[in-house]
């Protein structure tokens, strides 16, 4: 018999995809036909795009139809629908009611699917799942060669019979799942693609390619991207295909809450990775076969989450992630297999025999069993042992002996992560009023010490999470700041308006998600640019550089908004106070002491204290000492410009300024615009109208040139740069081999990435975008790891790119190194020309100008550099060199003040208000005159006597020199320690607070982490790199928001445990 054609799965999925909907589908199968039919009707009734599933029972899977029939006769419930035992007629009746509404797919797990397919087709069904490998190795003892033969035959028959019955056969690979866990993604993606090719070879032209969620969302999105790209390359264009993600297929969370969270996580992966369909799991997964109701709940939740995730995705999407590692591994595997035979099935059999494909922990007799997968500290799967897999970069053999304990630990990784706080009993969702009232004071108290951007970010993420899961009990958060609660010292709101930020307002946000239809709240709100336009339509400009004070007002606005939205049991107490000490209280909590608070006990403390005002050392100390001896020689020490004593420098006095970086521009503004002067437009540039109250500025630095401007911004606020060569995965892989040498292992790739942008920009200007795509492909194919820059230059040349001078970073940072100038006037002319050339390059833009685009890459790949260098990534010797040589050059070239600042420099030079001393500037105290003396080693006749000296360099953070009583108390007690990089024999004492990886607990001087403290931002500089980031960015989360969220997540775990203490957990066998 033949039923009428049901809904076509591929068309159904394609239609949903164009509507922007994720198709959701259950795993569902019961032995009783009536209940099976009910289940399908319930799925069809879910208000979302769904697909119905008939999952078959284990007897049918192993072709033991007799046992299935016997069980049905006796009414013994099976773990699925015994399709062959019931037969085509019963099956057709089961699907009848939904056949016109939703597609129905049969999922089985049989290495000999002939009977199943035949029955299906007679029941009008031609949509199923499987593959010669994936329905064999994980599912029994049928030899692989036999499975390949059976699948080849059954697939051909399905293709023919389906078509003659008027239904389009569709097969989904199960290769993306295999044994469900501990298999690194490359093998899953490879088998999925190979099985897709196998189906196509045997006549099926509508396929879906599966991938099962693993232990890392980031890695999963990469895997989906690799799967899509490889399928595009290998499947003939006529084949209809889509991607299907399976919610986690390994050991599942025990608690309903954990199960729901894992499901939600899989939805996010599907949306980010661009999978069109998702097969869900239910809250029953860890325990038993789910009920229809549980399946409906899971489908409904997944569909809702998908709609929400489409609006604001957390984390980068498939096009933005760096899929190169998975893609390279997968490609190598697939290509090695396809070389073995033109027949995909034969190739698969040979590949397993040779160990070129080898599934970790699989007991099947045809699996070599030489590989091992494992989970790294970031939760990503990797090859602990790659056996004979033909992986790029050679074999991995790091597997330790596997023990039962270690196995269970790895198997339960995801369950543990998602059950996390929930284990130990259900947390009541609504605060039980009377019980809460019975408590005197809060049950938990958290302190934020420092409410600059880092502190506010933690509060924002914590509030977002608390809103999702309100605590049942009172929680108090102390928000403490020594200067201004809600924005902190650097961004305080009473500073002069001429002090500007260095980031365009549109690129700054303190909300962790974009604004939506609702009111601004934790998780959704405007960027600084959007807010600025709203509060000051006349001046607000997303591309403009906002006054710092304005950013301070924005920060406080965010702070207030977040506070207003907190669920009732959470109270924030903002206190302006300088915390003086933090010590363990006898009860085991932390005791905070400050003049305003006295002593308060708190459970958790987030230390986001920001910029210190360190004691001067070395050269600074000498200068300070001279000033102390000579009251006539004024000395202004380095600090945030708003806190420098610049106002009392007399008009007309000669003021030396050391440093030509970002601080210099602040000082320059304070002493010119801040004194009533004005810049007027004049020709292409500016003209300065003095007020007459300015001092004369004599500025210098080692290079003698003001740091170059950032290219005219052409990047949208949510711009994401996806590196091709200098990738996180490359750095992560390199680090697995041990501490890196910056010059050897890191810098070549960084420079190659910059070269890529340099040449790519030039190629695009000449030949358009396609040329760049081709360029990137060729570079990827030909890059030689021992000299990555060579391939870039060579391929650009072959494509007809112009001969560009190599980017020489040190030379750009010190353009006049080794040059001598006969007079200050001669230098003046040369440096003014230099600034004009820089402005011309900057005008070309940070996308269209080859040089500025390449230099902007330095900003774009900061996060990759962190992967390489943070937490002792470099050997001690290399770390020292990195800090001494690379960091100053990179910050000079990527700090990038807005162009207007350099126009101002030119105008001030013209007006005679500013003089640049020249390269090799030195400032000393002149004992004879009692005044300061400035000179430039490379400029004859530059020496000049000065009335005041301003140190405009940003002091290198070093906790050991921070005089703040809090820092002192923490160091004394050994709670904070300065990070010593002692890798590879060397020793480098860095002065950065030693912290763990996320969630960044301080590591005590005795080596133990303080798990109830967290440190973010500047104090940790040198343990981590480039922490002086003062805002999040719209769009995908960067490290700034990610770090804050990691702390918030950890705090949430603490709060959940606090309300219902978890009993000690034992792994149960």
């Amino acid at each position: 018999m033949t039923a009428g054609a049901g809904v076509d799965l591929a068309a159904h999925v394609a239609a949903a995809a164009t509507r922007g909907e994720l198709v959701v589908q259950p795993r569902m199968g019961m032995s009783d036909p009536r209940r099976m039919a009910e289940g399908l009707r319930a799925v069809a009734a879910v208000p979302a795009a769904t697909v119905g599933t008939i999952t078959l029972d284990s007897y049918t899977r192993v072709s033991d139809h007799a046992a299935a029939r016997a069980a049905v006769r006796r009414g013994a419930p099976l773990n699925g629908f015994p399709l062959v035992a019931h037969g085509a007629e019963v099956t057709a009746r089961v699907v009848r009611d939904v056949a016109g509404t939703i597609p129905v797919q049969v999922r089985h797990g049989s290495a000999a699917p002939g009977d199943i397919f035949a029955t299906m087709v007679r029941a009008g069904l031609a949509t199923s799942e499987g593959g010669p490998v994936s329905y064999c190795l994980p599912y029994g003892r049928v030899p692989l060669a036999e499975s390949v033969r059976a699948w080849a035959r059954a697939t051909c028959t399905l293709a023919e019979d389906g078509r003659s019955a008027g239904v389009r056969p569709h097969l989904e690979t199960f290769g993306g799942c295999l044994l469900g866990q501990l298999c690194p993604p490359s093998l899953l993606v490879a088998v999925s693609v190979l099985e897709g090719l196998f189906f196509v070879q045997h006549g099926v032209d509508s396929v879906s390619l599966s991938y099962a969620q693993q232990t890392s969302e980031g890695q999963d999105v990469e895997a989906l991207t690799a799967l899509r790209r490889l399928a595009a390359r290998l499947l003939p264009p006529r084949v209809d295909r889509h991607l299907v993600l399976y919610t986690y297929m390994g050991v599942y969370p025990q608690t309903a809450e954990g199960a729901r969270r894992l499901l939600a996580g899989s939805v996010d992966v599907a949306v980010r990775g661009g999978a069109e369909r998702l097969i869900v799991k239910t809250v029953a997964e860890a325990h038993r076969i789910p009920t229809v109701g549980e399946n409906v709940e899971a489908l409904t939740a997944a569909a809702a989450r998908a709609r929400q995730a489409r609006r604001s995705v957390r984390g980068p999407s498939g096009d933005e992630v760096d899929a190169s590692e998975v893609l390279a591994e997968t490609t190598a595997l697939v290509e090695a297999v396809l070389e073995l035979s033109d027949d995909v099935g034969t190739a698969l059999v040979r590949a397993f025999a040779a160990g070129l494909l080898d599934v970790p922990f699989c007991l099947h007799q045809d699996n070599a069993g030489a590989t091992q997968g494992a989970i790294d500290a970031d939760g990503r799967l990797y090859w602990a042992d790659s056996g004979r897999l033909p992986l790029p970069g050679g074999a991995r053999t790091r597997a330790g002996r596997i023990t039962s304990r270690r196995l269970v630990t790895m198997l339960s990784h995801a369950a543990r992560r998602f059950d996390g706080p929930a284990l130990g009993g259900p947390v009541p969702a609504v605060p039980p009023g009377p019980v809460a009232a019975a408590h005197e004071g809060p049950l938990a108290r958290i302190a934020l010490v420092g409410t600059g951007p880092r502190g506010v970010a933690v509060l924002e993420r914590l509030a977002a999470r608390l809103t999702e899961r309100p605590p049942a009990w009172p929680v108090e958060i102390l928000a403490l700041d020594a200067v201004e609660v809600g924005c902190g010292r650097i961004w305080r709101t009473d500073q002069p308006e001429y002090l500007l930020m260095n980031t365009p307002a549109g690129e700054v946000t303190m909300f962790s998600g974009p604004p939506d239809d609702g009111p601004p709240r934790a998780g959704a709100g405007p960027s600084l640019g959007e807010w600025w336009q709203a509060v000051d339509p006349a001046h607000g400009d997303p591309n403009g550089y906002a006054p710092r004070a304005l950013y301070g007002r924005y920060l406080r606005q965010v702070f207030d908004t977040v506070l207003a939205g907190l669920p009732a049991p959470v109270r924030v107490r903002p206190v302006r106070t300088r915390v003086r000490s933090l010590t363990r209280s006898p009860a085991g909590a932390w005791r905070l002491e400050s003049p305003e608070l006295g002593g308060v006990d708190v459970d958790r403390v987030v230390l986001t204290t920001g910029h210190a005002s360190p004691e001067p050392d070395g050269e600074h100390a000498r200068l300070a000492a001279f000033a102390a001896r000579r009251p006539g020689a004024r000395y202004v020490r380095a600090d945030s410009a708003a806190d420098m004593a610049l106002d009392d420098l007399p008009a007309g006095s000669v003021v030396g300024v050391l440093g030509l970086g970002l601080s210099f521009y602040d000082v320059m503004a304070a002493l010119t615009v801040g004194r009533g002067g004005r810049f007027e437009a004049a020709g292409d540039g500016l003209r300065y109208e003095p007020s007459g109250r300015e001092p004369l500025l004599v500025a210098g630095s080692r290079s003698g040139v003001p740091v170059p401007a950032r290219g005219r911004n052409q990047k949208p606020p949510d711009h994401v740069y996806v590196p091709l060569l200098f990738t996180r995965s490359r750095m992560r892989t390199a680090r697995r081999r041990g501490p890196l040498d910056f010059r050897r292992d890191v810098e070549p790739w960084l420079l190659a990435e910059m070269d890529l942008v340099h040449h790519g920009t030039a190629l695009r200007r000449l030949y358009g975008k396609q040329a760049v795509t081709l360029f990137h492909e060729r570079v990827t194919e030909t890059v030689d790891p021992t000299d990555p820059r060579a391939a870039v230059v060579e391929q650009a040349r072959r494509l007809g790119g112009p001969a560009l001078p190599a980017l020489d970073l040190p030379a750009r940072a010190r353009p006049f190194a080794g040059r001598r100038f006969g007079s200050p006037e001669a230098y003046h002319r040369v440096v003014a020309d230099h600034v004009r050339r820089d402005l011309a390059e900057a005008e070309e833009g940070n996308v269209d100008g080859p040089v500025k685009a390449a230099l902007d890459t330095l900003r774009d790949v900061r996060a990759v550099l962190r992967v390489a260098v943070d937490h002792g990534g470099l050997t001690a010797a290399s770390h020292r060199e990195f800090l001494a040589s690379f960091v100053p050059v990179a910050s000079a070239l990527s700090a990038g003040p807005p162009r207007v600042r350099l126009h101002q420099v030119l105008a001030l030079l013209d007006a005679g208000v500013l003089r640049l001393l020249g390269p090799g500037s030195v400032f000393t105290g002149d004992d004879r005159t009692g005044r300061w003396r400035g000179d430039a080693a490379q400029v004859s006749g530059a020496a000049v006597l000065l009335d005041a000296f301003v140190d405009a360099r940003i002091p290198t953070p070093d906790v050991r020199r921070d005089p703040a009583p809090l820092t002192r108390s923490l160091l004394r007690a050994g709670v904070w320690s300065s990070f010593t990089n002692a890798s590879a024999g060397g020793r480098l004492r860095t002065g950065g607070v030693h912290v763990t990886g996320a969630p960044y607990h301080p590591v005590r001087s005795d080596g133990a982490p303080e798990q109830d403290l967290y440190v973010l931002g500047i104090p940790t500089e040198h343990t981590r790199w480039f922490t002086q980031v003062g805002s999040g960015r719209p769009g995908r989360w960067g490290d700034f928001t990610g770090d804050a969220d990691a702390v918030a997540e950890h705090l949430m775990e603490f709060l959940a445990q606090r309300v219902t203490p978890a009993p000690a957990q034992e792994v149960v066998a």
Partner: protein
Amino acid sequence: MTSVLTRGRTVLLSTVSSDAHTWNLVYLQLLLEEHGHHVVNLGPCVPDEHLLTVARAVRPDAIVISSVNGHGHLDGARLIRTLRDDADLAATPAVIGGKLGIDGEDDDRHVQALLDAGFDAVVTEGTPASALAEFLAATPPPRAVDAGAPARAA
């Protein structure tokens, strides 16, 4: 822990004919080996006859059956009856454990039926790992001809 030398058993580890799950088997093999036992692991979907053939050849000190697919109570009962009908294997201590039915907690319903069918012990979800070690420790020492009735665990 008991001494490996005096107490190591040869254990036949298997699942039932319709059950494809193997992570449980990989885990139990490691656990048993760590306790000093020698393990013959038959892998997934083991037909009753295959298990019998191997058991007759190996003469294990104990048989450990693990099943999690929900058919364990059906397949397990059939298997143990066949085993107990075999003269050579009638007295070999045998234990079954895992997720034996499809209803989660209701697994307990199946315990008595499986004991009646011939298992010496039935271990359900939530029983600590030590149960298996205790069960084996209570089996007759290796190569002992007859040490009386096997102990019941669980």
